[in-house]
């Protein structure tokens, strides 16, 4: 008897949600998918994606939507995990989205991109920078961020020209993104004649990095490039100061987050360089200023990470393409983005266009420094003209 009850309860729990499927969305609103880590280790970034995109969707809907149709976002959580990402991609296909923004990390983007390619759904990733993602010949896959190798090249130039470093160290955290950036940096550094005297990874789950910091301190490096995320970046800076070591840190764009300064403490963070896309507040483009203002008004805080901005950027690109072509057909949209889309005033700087692989053209990386007040500030001396016009 008890057993029947248990089975009945289980079955009803399993079957109850199935009823909701009957009312699959059809017709009016244009559905745009947003896939990101809403839970798990990167939950903060995924939820930021959602905030940024939702803000723009609300704006668009207030102004009458796209092609006279309202826009709705379909949010799915992949937890940054490749398996869940594949399941989520199937759900996106079922829900009938026109385009998908996401995922956050390259590991999660990879399996999803394959499904979207096969199903012919426009796919723009705001933040997955692994080079190989665009090397599979998918015609409807784009990214609004820049590749690992662009930033790596920029970082090497910065260390070479601005810091005058000769011997450098590279530290990553074994994540897909950080490892890729670190390996490209090594390649370009060796090309530029810099000596890479130290190359290792930390375990991002750790709290204490003093052993490896002591090693780095011993190695006599002119600069160390950390390509991982801001939380570990903050801990590294803090423990460097506590050990009394003199290390010139330079961080990749995943560390471009005010929280890093908070974790490290202002004194420990001051003097650290960051290579990143320009921060929104440093862009004079009215689009960027407007977006940041609207974001602060809506959520009482500025967008904390570049990736949030780029998620919004991805949405703008999709919306723009739909408006310009008057179509929601993936082939038309992809065709437009490849060939006719140019000089768009983006939130992260003008978008020159996309190349045939779907990568964003040009580079807009800039060098920033954490100043004595703990603010991430544009560094007066840049290795090259920061934007290639």
């Amino acid at each position, binding site marked *: 008897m008890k057993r029947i009850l248990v089975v009945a309860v289980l079955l009803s729990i399993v079957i109850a949600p199935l009823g909701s499927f009957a009312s699959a969305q059809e017709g009016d609103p244009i559905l745009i998918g947003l896939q990101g880590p809403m*839970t*798990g*280790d990167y*939950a*903060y970034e995924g*939820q930021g994606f959602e905030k940024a995109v939702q803000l723009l969707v609300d704006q668009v809907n207030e102004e009458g939507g796209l092609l006279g149709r309202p826009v709705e976002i379909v949010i799915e959580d992949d937890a940054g995990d490749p398996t869940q990402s594949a399941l989520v991609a199937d759900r996106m296909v079922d829900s009938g989205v026109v385009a998908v923004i996401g995922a956050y990390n390259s590991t999660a983007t990879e399996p999803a991109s394959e499904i979207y390619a096969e199903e012919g759904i426009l796919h723009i990733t705001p933040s997955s920078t692994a080079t190989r993602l665009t090397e599979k010949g998918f015609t409807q896959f784009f990214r609004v961020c820049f590749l690992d190798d662009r930033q790596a090249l920029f970082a090497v130039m910065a260390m070479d020209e601005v810091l005058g470093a000769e011997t450098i160290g590279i530290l990553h955290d*074994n994540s897909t993104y950080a490892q890729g950036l670190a390996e490209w940096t090594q390649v370009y550094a060796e090309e530029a004649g810099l000596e890479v005297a130290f*190359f*290792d*990874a*930390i*375990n991002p*789950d*750790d*709290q*204490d990095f*003093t*052993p*490896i910091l*002591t*090693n780095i301190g*011993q190695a006599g490096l002119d600069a160390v490039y950390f390509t991982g995320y*801001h*939380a570990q970046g*903050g*801990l590294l800076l*803090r423990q460097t100061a*506590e*050990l*009394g070591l003199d290390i010139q840190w330079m961080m990749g764009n995943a560390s471009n987050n005010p*929280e890093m300064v*908070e*974790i490290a*403490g*202002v004194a420990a963070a001051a003097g650290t360089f960051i290579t990143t896309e320009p921060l929104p507040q440093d862009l004079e483009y009215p689009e960027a200023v407007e977006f940041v203002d609207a974001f602060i008004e809506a959520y009482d805080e500025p967008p904390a990470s570049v990736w949030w901005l780029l998620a919004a950027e991805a949405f703008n690109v999709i919306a723009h393409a739909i408006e310009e072509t008057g179509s929601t057909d993936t082939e038309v949209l992809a065709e437009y983005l490849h060939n006719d889309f140019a000089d768009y005033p983006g939130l992260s700087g003008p978008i020159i266009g996309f190349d045939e692989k779907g990568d964003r053209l040009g580079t807009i990386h800039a060098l920033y420094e954490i100043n004595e007040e703990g603010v991430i500030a544009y560094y007066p001396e840049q290795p090259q003209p920061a934007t290639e016009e």
Partner: protein
Amino acid sequence: METFLQQLINGLTIGGFYAVVALGYTMVYGVLKLINFAHGDMFMWGTLTGWALLTTVFASFTDMDVIAILAASVVVLAFIGVMGMTIERVAYRPLRSAGRLSPIISALGAAFALQAVARNVSDARWRTYPEGLLAELPNVQLTGRVSLSGLQVLMLVTCAAVMIGLYLFVQRTRVGTAMRAVSLDHDVSRLMGINVNRIISLVFFIGPALGGLAGLLIGIYYGSFNFTLGWVFGLKAFIAAILGGIGNIPGAVIGGFILGISETMVVAYGPDIGLADASAWKDAIAYVLLITILIARPTGILGETVAEKV
């Protein structure tokens, strides 16, 4: 030599934390023969509670950070202790005679639940403790370039005090004797007039409370944390407890220090012996060490070889 000394200090600090957290695992195992997988998350809850207190209720105590921290410690000890007792009552006691698989699942379930609540409370973000806590503690200068920060000294002293105190409590007091009796045999202890349930409750108060205290110390020491701290650190501390011989208090301490120091030394001297990316492989090496020790000594370094009960 200086580098070695510095690395030794680094290792001792990490090891000290492992040791205190390992005590909780070892105590619970001693009386219940249960791997309390929720212990790591209760420890993380200590960090979380400490953060919540120091950034809100005690935030105005900026000039009196010692008082604020002491007050926070008391609250954390009590809160995490009660949390431990509650979990024992709800999730473990009903399963005491249900074999050994079920309590493990129940413990894992409790860990999941604790972690999920912590994630939502902290918005899944990294949270930072107030800056400059206990910053005015004097440094201890060892050699020209190597020094122990005041915080490190405080941590090591606290860890040592907790461990010695606990050891004496278990060895010298009546309640401690009762604990040891319970760990040997529940039924006989009951016949001897010991209230077994009360002793187990007490163990589940002390173990998690100490873990929570270690959590608070870690928060102050490293300045920031996120909700996954308990899972990762808990697993390491668990290894330390096993390494020393689980159920054995000095064993947990020894295990903690061995693990901390060996991890550090792998990173420090790995490159010299041809392991270029030693840091990335550090944890794997710690596990290999564990397996090797267990193969040589199946019940850990200080574990007694107990003939299997039939």
